[in-house]
């Protein structure tokens, strides 16, 4: 447990020191990875913990991106207002999707989210006055308290701090009664109901929460990249997001981080074989689903490389000498 905390602290310190040594390109890459971590954490809460399939995660990222862009560029608001506004808007839309879909599951839920994805795509294309249409939209660099974040290091720390905040929030929610409710809804909605957990409402909360994370990440993305490109928010990106959590480990915050980082780094590592990147990506996804259903985190646990905070153990071989008779007369 001690070792784990030290490891995390070391990682944080190293990341914080990065601007001292890395080129702006690498900083950019790490920023992208961190944004993907935020996305993955949110999606894992919805799909990994709550078991709800969502093929429209990219849409919420897009909604957050456009919202932030409009707030800063159109209305001249500071990023410190634009980002929370994006989170709120995304959360509301997430609830708007989650509410009517709360009684659907499996295939029908997947189709509904697919429909939502397409709908958002069409809206983006059909209202170019707001969205820039298929040609995309330029976004101003983040503006905090009047200071424009022009320097690479400043932008990096901005993203860094916000990512840590998002991960902490995600972990807090997962360890709270809401996280338990999510898992309950996934594994046994009947038992959950019998315990007074409002299953439908919990699903809506999960959708809304996921949308908030995705919207937040989208807002950050648009600020970092400086440009919004609509194809980015299509089905392929949604599948990518799902790949993050499947490869990393469903239902695990660590898994979200590992998966997002590994799969953001992957296309970079495949630079040399650029054309094969997509194919390899798909093969990794398929391979993980077929052979590593618990993701990398599951693999590490099996190899005993990673001790979860409270290890789930095998039942004691011989519980007690005789069957316990509690409340004996």
């Amino acid at each position, binding site marked *: 447990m001690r070792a784990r905390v030290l490891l995390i602290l070391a990682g944080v310190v190293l990341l914080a020191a990065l601007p001292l040594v890395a080129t702006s390109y690498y900083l950019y890459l790490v920023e992208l990875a961190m944004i993907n971590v935020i996305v993955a954490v949110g999606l894992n809460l919805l799909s990994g913990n709550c078991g709800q399939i969502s093929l429209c995660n990219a849409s919420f990222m897009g909604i957050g991106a456009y919202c932030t862009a409009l707030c800063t560029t159109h209305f001249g608001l500071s990023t410190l207002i634009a980002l929370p506004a994006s989170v709120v808007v995304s959360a509301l839309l997430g609830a708007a999707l989650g509410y009517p879909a709360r009684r*659907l*599951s499996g295939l029908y839920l997947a189709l509904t989210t*697919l429909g939502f994805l397409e709908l958002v795509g*069409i809206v983006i294309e*059909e209202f170019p006055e707001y969205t820039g249409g298929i040609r995309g939209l330029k976004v101003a660099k983040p503006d905090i308290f009047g200071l424009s974040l022009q320097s690479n290091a400043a932008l990096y720390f901005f993203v860094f701090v916000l990512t840590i905040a998002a991960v902490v929030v995600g972990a807090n929610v997962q360890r709270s009664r809401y996280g338990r409710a999510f898992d309950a809804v996934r594994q046994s909605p009947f038992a959950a109901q019998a315990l007074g957990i409002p299953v439908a409402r919990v699903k809506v909360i999960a959708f809304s929460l996921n949308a908030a994370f995705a919207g937040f990440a989208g807002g950050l993305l648009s600020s970092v990249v400086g440009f919004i490109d609509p194809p980015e928010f299509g089905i392929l990106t949604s599948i990518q997001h799902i790949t993050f959590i499947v490869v990393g480990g469903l239902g695990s915050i660590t898994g979200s981080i590992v998966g997002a980082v590994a799969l953001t780094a992957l296309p970079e590592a495949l630079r040399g074989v650029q054309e094969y990147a997509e194919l390899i990506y798909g093969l990794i996804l398929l391979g993980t*689903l*077929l052979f590593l259903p618990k993701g990398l985190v599951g693999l590490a646990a099996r190899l005993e490389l990673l001790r979860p905070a409270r290890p789930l153990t095998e039942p004691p071989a011989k519980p007690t000498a005789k069957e316990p008779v509690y409340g004996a007369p």
Partner: protein
Amino acid sequence: MTWRIILQLALSGLSIGSIYALVGLALVLPFKASGIVNFAQGEIVTFGAYLALILSGLGLPYLAVVPLVLVGAAMFGMATERLLIRPIANQPEFTLVIVTFAIGFIIKAAIRLHWQDNTFSIDAPFVGPPLVLGALRLNPAYLVFILGTVVVVAALFLFFGYSKFGKAMRATALDPIAAKLMGIRIGSVFSAAWALSTMLGAFVGLLLAPVIGINPEIGHLILKGLVAAVIGGFSSLGGAVVGGLLLGLLETYAGAFFGATFKNLVPFGVLILLLLLRPQGLAGASSVRRV
């Protein structure tokens, strides 16, 4: 708005609707047999088109290409089912959905690797100048789409209604355990269902290739097929056909009367409305699980 235009639009709507119907059929088949929706179906259509491209590049005429593509697709479908789907058949729905997506992703990536995003074309005997029938001018390709669908639907009807294997498949769809107990080899049934559905998808690719050209994005029409299947309640083959035709007509008329934007919104509007209000579709039984 003359009768002539209305009829033309109807023909146009029915012909594109036939394509949607075929894709819808291809989706409902394996779902009825094994409860799995193949989200790679769009890429199967693309696969069929590119396979036709390869064979026609070897000098073969279209009519020779057709049966070869169908056989190739069937084998591909059976291989996929045995190697990739069956091992994970007991996993949660989440996994199954993503696996089929991944398969589609891989197919598309492989295609783009080799052919990039260029559009190719092949020749077919039914591509030509419009036929004139009285006051109507009919695109022969449209007729072939409709005819092709009629033939397929008739063949399936006969197969499921009268052939031994077809009946075995129906039994398995109703109750796999009972079917197994009666000696039906459900593994073969699953393979056959996937082979059939892959053939259907490839057939669509074959029809579309000479008409709209061959490029990696053809697969996008899986969405239309999904809507068709949902209209039919995902439980009825006939429903999927009706759904496809209905969707084609709705789209065409909407586009003619209200413009392109509206036309694009039709499928998704329909989908979301149905899913939220009547998931069992127009034909299906009201047994969609609602927790």
